[in-house]
């Protein structure tokens, strides 16, 4: 049962990653691409972490997976804010 759930969760995670990459490739400008990117970051990684957590041998690894996900969220949030503002500031300087 746990294996089946792992199959499903990791597949969903992969779908979100592929969707994020497709958005990064197909959307027309920096800000829309950033929007697509954050979906892959948060949801894709979260589902994969959940799927792998079901295979973990003890609670220590589950906690570590959760910490990794939270750190990735923190980093993604900061990075997207900084990249967007830097791009916006550059737009204003040249526009």
């Amino acid at each position: 049962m746990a294996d089946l759930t792992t199959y499903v969760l990791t597949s969903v995670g992969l779908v979100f990653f592929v969707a994020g990459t497709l958005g990064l490739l197909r959307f027309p400008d920096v800000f829309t691409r950033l929007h697509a990117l954050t979906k892959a970051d948060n949801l894709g990684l979260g589902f994969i972490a959940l799927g792998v957590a079901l295979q973990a041998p003890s609670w220590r690894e589950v906690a570590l997976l959760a910490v990794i996900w939270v750190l990735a969220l923190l980093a993604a949030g900061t990075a997207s804010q900084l990249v967007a503002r830097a791009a916006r500031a550059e737009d204003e300087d040249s526009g």
Partner: protein
Amino acid sequence: MTFWLSLIATGLLASLAGALWRVWRGPRAADRMMGAQLVGTAGVAVLMLLAPAEGWATLDVALLLALLAALAAIGFAKATSPDGAGDPEEDGAGDPEEQQAAAADTTDGRADG
């Protein structure tokens, strides 16, 4: 299970290749930086998927990647600031509401609400 996890991991690598295309094409520096961010996150995911097979100490490597993922973005924000040591948010740059508030109110540049 190892077969399935490595299958998903290979799918992630293929998706990662798409992000690399964005790094190659740009056209802006911010696009390239976002491609690098996606590679970092996909790397964390791949390492998570490899952990059951390679040993759970692999999660420590994933932890490091997640910890330091934002450092490149911070470096990028510094790189695009005028003197190489600034912050894109200073003086309300890049935030239209802030600039309106700053223009309208000279004592406090922060917009409320």
